């Protein structure tokens, strides 16, 4: 990683006329994949599949309905998630197929491809393969995000060398420090000093302490990783979008998803919730509030399925759905009746504090389900 950054800066200084930024990025990505990733050719195969699907869809698919394109693009990922829960006992030819779909970063690449398809579908012109390759397999964000947008990312790549300013590098340095602190110090300390030493005696105290410790661990580990990804992006002139922003200060589920894994929340909102809810609204199914709630619930249930087809992921996704539904119903009633239906005339600051406390515990519980400790 460090070598790549140095390389980018050297080329910027001495060879920016010889080789364009996007080609350089592709080469570096390719070398990285070949040297460090366990299955580089699977990865390239997946990118070719996604690119071919995108091209085909743009050329021949005229419909406005996005279900077919989404399923087509998500097919490899669905296989992967499915194969991870079934076990193959009988000896037949497809015994070894699951391995083909276990590719590093497959989920995020599929998500990027779907986002790209929807964003660009009304715009004419061909999508350049190099651009697509760079976007889909951008190394810092390959594994666990954040999810970027094609248009934004390609713009950054276009101005790659100009973007590599000292200001952005400094921003990257700050992100790097925080990322190291979160992932390698705080998350590591929580994991090594607390989490693995909790003694499972089956008591409520154990499960409670595991719940909060795991939440903190997950946050610092995940947010730290995101920060590191952002930092490495920044060092080579890419403004990777932020993913975490003090999520435990969120007062409601809606705000929480703007602060916790924001790029996934936005993705789900833009490409799943919005079309789904629009479809419901056009069909005039039930009342407005019922439509809102069903769309919300389904979105979060999908998120659960996306994490994996295991029961604990699905239940935890649905739980987040239920939180959002409850909050949305409350919010709707407040607006309709023009008063706070739960807190009444309570001091604004107190409402805020109470909301934060409730939200934190609700999240802790859902993440605890997510951890798979309970079932």
């Amino acid at each position, binding site marked *: 990683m460090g070598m790549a950054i140095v390389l980018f800066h050297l080329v910027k200084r001495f060879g920016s006329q010889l080789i364009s930024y996007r080609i350089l990025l592709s080469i570096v990505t390719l070398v990285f994949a070949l040297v460090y990733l366990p299955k580089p050719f699977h990865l390239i195969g997946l990118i070719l599949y996604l690119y071919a699907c995108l091209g085909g869809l743009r050329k021949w698919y005229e419909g406005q309905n996005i279900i077919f394109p989404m399923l087509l693009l998500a097919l490899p990922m669905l296989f992967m998630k499915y194969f991870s829960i079934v076990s193959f006992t009988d000896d037949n030819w497809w015994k070894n197929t699951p391995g083909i779909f276990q590719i590093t970063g497959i989920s995020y690449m599929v998500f990027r491809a779907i986002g790209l398809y929807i964003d660009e579908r009304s715009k004419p012109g061909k999508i350049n393969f190099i651009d697509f390759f760079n976007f889909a397999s951008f190394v810092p964000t390959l594994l666990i995000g954040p999810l970027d947008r094609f248009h934004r990312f390609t713009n950054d790549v276009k101005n790659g060398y100009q973007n590599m300013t*000292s*200001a952005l590098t*400094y921003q990257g*340095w700050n992100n790097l420090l925080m990322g190291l602190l979160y992932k390698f110090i705080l998350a590591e300390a929580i994991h090594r000093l607390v989490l693995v030493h909790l003694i499972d005696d089956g008591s409520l105290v154990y499960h409670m302490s595991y719940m909060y410790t795991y939440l903190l661990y997950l946050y610092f580990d995940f947010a730290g990783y995101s920060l590191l990804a952002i930092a490495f992006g920044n060092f080579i002139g890419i403004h990777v979008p932020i993913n975490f922003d003090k999520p435990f200060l969120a007062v409601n589920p809606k705000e929480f998803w703007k602060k916790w894994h924001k790029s996934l929340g936005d993705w789900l909102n833009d490409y799943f919730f919005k079309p789904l809810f629009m479809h419901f609204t056009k069909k005039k199914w039930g009342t407005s509030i019922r439509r809102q709630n069903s769309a919300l619930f389904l979105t979060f249930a999908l998120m659960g399925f996306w994490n994996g087809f295991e029961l604990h992921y699905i239940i935890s996704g649905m739980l987040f759905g239920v939180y959002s539904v409850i909050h949305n119903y409350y919010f709707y009633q407040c607006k309709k009746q023009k008063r706070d239906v739960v807190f009444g005339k309570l001091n604004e600051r107190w409402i805020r504090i109470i909301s934060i406390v409730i939200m934190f515990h609700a999240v802790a519980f859902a993440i605890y389900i997510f951890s798979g400790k309970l079932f």
Partner: protein
Amino acid sequence: MNSLLKHKLAFELTAFLASLGFIVIALFFIFSRLEKDQSEKQIITLHVNNPSPDRGLVPNYTNGLSSEMMLMSSLSRKDQLTLFGSSEFSSNTNSSYIYLPEKLGIPAMGFGHAFHQNFSIYCELLAGKEYLKDSKIVIFLSPGWFETEGTNSEAFLEFVPPHFLEKIWMDESISTDYKLEIGRFIARNAEKFSNLTLRMQAFKTLYESECEFNQAAKLRTKLDKNYPVFNKGNKIKYSVEGGAKIQHRTFPNFRKLQTEAQTIFLNASANNTLYVDSLYFNEFVLQPNGAIKTGSVKPIDKENSAEYKDFLLLLKLLKDKEVNCSFVIQGLNPYYYTNLEEINPIVRSIVNELKKSEFPYLNMFTYRKADYQPGSLNDIMHLGDLGWLQVNEFIYNTYLR
């Protein structure tokens, strides 16, 4: 832009250097305080309630403090017998640690199970060094031990718990030579442990430094600081309580009891001519095809036997500390083993060493069928009722007449 960058660089650098400086000063401060604490001797006293039973068997010390305390209190009680042995410590009612307290009212505790060999006994005695004076100790030797490569790593972990290692390390009255032996053992078996604890590492480093630079004593003080486990205290002390004395009741007629035991055994082993308990014979000796299994032993070269070296080491410690110790050399069944004369030399060497050191011993080993007393072993190698009664008689004669 450039001035902005300079400003930010200065900002980062000062923050970094300030924190570095802060940490260095803090560490310096903490270490200087630690140094002071070191000079004040600190004694950690380990204590458990009611640690002084007068009978029973402790198979190993993995139960933590309470099992360690059993050993220490047994060693510290001068009226009590402390028995170290291995696989013969089963639940035979005539086992010394059962028979002596129950029938004769003499407190006795057994320590060990299979694989409890010379080296772990050596470490246990070192850990209990301050209680050794006048302790009554009986060590049960098995000829089979000397065929092994010495105490194995698992047995070491079971019989030499962290407290023992720490106690040995901290005890300045134990000479470095004794400690080096533990380091030698750990170094030799290093790859047989999944990883070494800091304490084990310290012993190993001590040994290796002695091998290379011949300066273990100097290094020790340094190691004390390098291995923070030892910084918790300078000394470990077990707080032991003496229990009530039991008076022995009668002088038993061992001759008569032994004759009775032999008669019972001959009936119980009637299905074979090897003088092996019938049930054992059917299960282990008789082959499915009707053939009778025999055993053989490997000749032991005492110069190269790790176990024999461990035995000499143990003997040296016992002599050094003037322990009131005696030995039982157990036999093997010459009807089952066909070439016992092969290990007769090493048994003779053991006996010679014991004679030289003037420790009382009972030698039950013989390679001649004619000298073998049927019933002294229940099977091919474990003491039977007759054997235990002979041992009990020996202990009684040694310590109580």
